[in-house]
């Protein structure tokens, strides 16, 4: 049975927001994008709900929202070689519990170094755990493209994480 919009939004908005955050690195932007996406979903709900699961559509709208935001020239994120005001990983200041070994900052920096679509592929593939063909459908590209982008993104992150002085990855 197809859930109501309210049931769907209540159940899925947090997951969509996390996906959006990992793609853009900004909780406020993730909130805006997910809210926009869910509002569009609400407007189209009678049409979409009769056609089966709407999860894929919602994810696609969120991904497109983040990518469209990155394309806007006045808001384009500029990849910087170093993050300003990075807290000392050993001090624990500003770092959440369980992430005080610096992995979090290294990973944030490494993610910021990926291109927008490559980052989207990495997040959808390894965070949302979507199969390659589903990622290709969401991004509107070929499965070969997804595979190559995922491999390159993984290699980039591996290099970034492997370049840490302690050579550790502790999720």
């Amino acid at each position, binding site marked *: 049975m197809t859930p109501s919009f309210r049931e769907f*939004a209540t159940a899925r908005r947090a997951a969509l927001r996390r996906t959006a955050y990992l793609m853009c690195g900004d909780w406020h932007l993730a*909130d805006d994008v997910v809210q926009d996406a*869910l509002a569009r979903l609400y*407007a189209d709900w009678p*049409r979409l709900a009769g056609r089966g699961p709407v999860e894929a559509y919602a994810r696609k709208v969120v991904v497109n929202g983040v990518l469209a935001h990155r394309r806007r020239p006045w808001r384009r994120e500029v990849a910087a070689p170093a993050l300003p005001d990075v807290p000392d990983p050993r001090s624990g200041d500003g770092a*959440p519990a369980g992430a005080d070994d610096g992995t979090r900052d290294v990973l944030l920096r490494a*993610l910021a170094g990926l291109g927008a679509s490559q980052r989207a592929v990495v997040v959808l593939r390894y965070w949302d755990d979507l199969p390659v063909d589903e990622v290709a459908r969401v991004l509107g590209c070929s499965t070969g493209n997804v595979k190559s982008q995922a491999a390159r993104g993984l290699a980039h992150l591996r290099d970034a994480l492997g370049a840490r002085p302690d050579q550790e990855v502790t*999720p």
Partner: protein
Amino acid sequence: MTTDPYPTDPATDPAARPAADETAGALLGAALGTLVRDEPPMRFTVEDVERRGRLLQRRRRRTRVGLGAGVLVAASGAAFLSAGAPGWQGAQRTPGVALGPTATPSQTTGTGDPNGTSLPVGFPLNEAFVAVQGALPDGVRLGDLPPDVAWEPGGPGYVAAVRVPLARGNAVPRHGGATLRLGPRCALDGADAVLDDVQARAVADAVCEVWTTWGRPDPLAVPPAPSTPPDPAA
């Protein structure tokens, strides 16, 4: 604990690459989890989203009505000019040949006035066709509308009806092949060639839903004639 995400060097052992990537992907997924662990509270509620969604729906509806009115005005203007507007030399209409919409005033969804302008009343045709288009399954499309498309009497038990050209793929749509009827329960008849019963039911329900949001007006209702202002000299 120290974990080596790449126990085997993929460059030296290509056969081990998928397994290494899989392991690395799993570790990356877990590492990404640390980034969302400090998730701040959400700044919006589902009610906020529903409110924005309703605004969006209203805005879209207004846009569609505006476009529909614009099309009707343009069609009326073209008909007026092609009928031989005074002072327009380009109009050389052959008597007896209809150019442009041929619907009678009682059939149109707009209120006509002597200047040829038209505003939508009742249930605009474009609303119905937009709803039909939105509800059609993949592979089925709405064809070009005939120039004389208009609401017609719906027959026993129905308020009004309109012909809907539907086609599958790139096939040429059959004009008048399907008939959409508005009534207590809307129906799409004659679409057997391109839609099954469930799909036809879904299309009819989609139109019925939009018609209901308009308050289920009678599309064939003739708007009241504009009142003539009293003559001050009388």
